[in-house]
């Protein structure tokens, strides 16, 4: 799995950080998403897919075959 984020679409909600704190964080100054792990381990795949699906800014993409 490969995770990518689009900073321009991020609204700073932090939903992804609440779901998967090992994969996502937010910048202190503007709340924009920080991708901590673009190839998360399999145990995290379910929660990362959920983070991508519920991201209110549609800023997270997941590529399954990478």
């Amino acid at each position, binding site marked *: 799995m490969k995770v990518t984020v689009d900073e321009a679409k991020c*609204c700073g*909600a932090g939903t992804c950080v609440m779901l998967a704190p090992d994969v996502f964080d937010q910048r*202190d100054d503007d709340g924009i998403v920080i991708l901590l792990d673009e190839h998360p381990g399999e145990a995290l795949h379910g929660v990362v897919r959920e983070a991508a*699906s519920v*991201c209110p800014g549609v800023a997270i993409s997941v590529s399954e075959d990478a």
Partner: protein
Amino acid sequence: MTAPSDVLVVGASAAGLATVEALRRKGYAGRVTVLGAEAHLPYDRPPLSKQVLGGSWLPGQAQLRTPATLSALDTEFILGDPAVRLDAGARTVHTAAGRTLTADAVVLATGLRPRTLPGQDGLAGVHVLRTLDDTLALRTDLAPGRRVVVVGDGVLGAEIAATVCAAGVPVALAGPQPAPLAYQFGPLAAGLLAELHAARGVELRLGSAVTGLAADHGRVAGVRLASGEVLAADVVVVAFGAAPATEWLAGSGVVCDNGVVCDSRCRAADGIYAAGDVARWHHEGLDALLRLENRTNATEQAVAVAGNILGEDRPYMPVPYFWTHQFDARIHVHGTLSADAEVSVVEGDPGEGRFVAQYRRDGKVTGVLGWNMPKQARLRRQDIAGAVLAGRT
């Protein structure tokens, strides 16, 4: 409980799409159909009043998923065909084009319809902003030299005024509150918002309700205020609230009262669920019926509904959250604010344009507002969850 053999989702926006994604993510392999009233593939609404109206995004950039991602969901999307009737007992939906769709589980996710002013139908120059087509029609009408009046001093109205103003079009904002969002934010944050709008050139005509429209030869000419004054306008945007789109559920067997009334599992009847703006469900933590009109709820509630369709049997108990961007202010709200709450700044400094404010009632933290401090506001959610959602497990 066994999983249903097929699921029908009525509504192809954020809540409808998120329901399908959550079903598949949770391993559901049955048949899924999504019925949408609009002809467009699922798109996102928050950018409509900002990036799409302002022209920094092309309409396609508001699409929620690429066609390839949608196709991987193995779901039939029937678009451009509104639902017109539900038989809840039979779990059958009839559509405008004459389709009859039946499924073991039906999800109602039909969203909202904007409220309108008397006499606005058929009057040129008057707009609402709910759909992509609404947004494009408004953009087209923002010709140079025209003066815009936005009716509605809530989140949507204030965002539209900011976007129109930033695009260089003269705009006035009208509504009954003393400042934009004052009934919700209270004097401190709403006052800052009023200062920001005024400083950037929005003409604030607040404190007087809008009673109707003035017209001239079939085109809008102004907005009438309760004070008797008429604000001249070439273009009017009506953005003073929306009602759940439940007309089509009359006689269906599900209870509609300011939304589809649901239990704590977001279930309106046997095999019938509701998600998103249209759902009014029993929040067990607050012990109240709640309906949330925000983007985050659309997806979070959809996840809960998908789980309950598959037998998880869990109550849906979110901490409400929304954000709004107006000019350079990025405001994030967790929990519930009210104008009469006791407000204290717990981080940052309003004078410097960055702060987090905590809202308390009866000594308990009910909400947090972050002004250009999204991360810090999110970290304060814990205070709310503990105090307001005492029943949360």
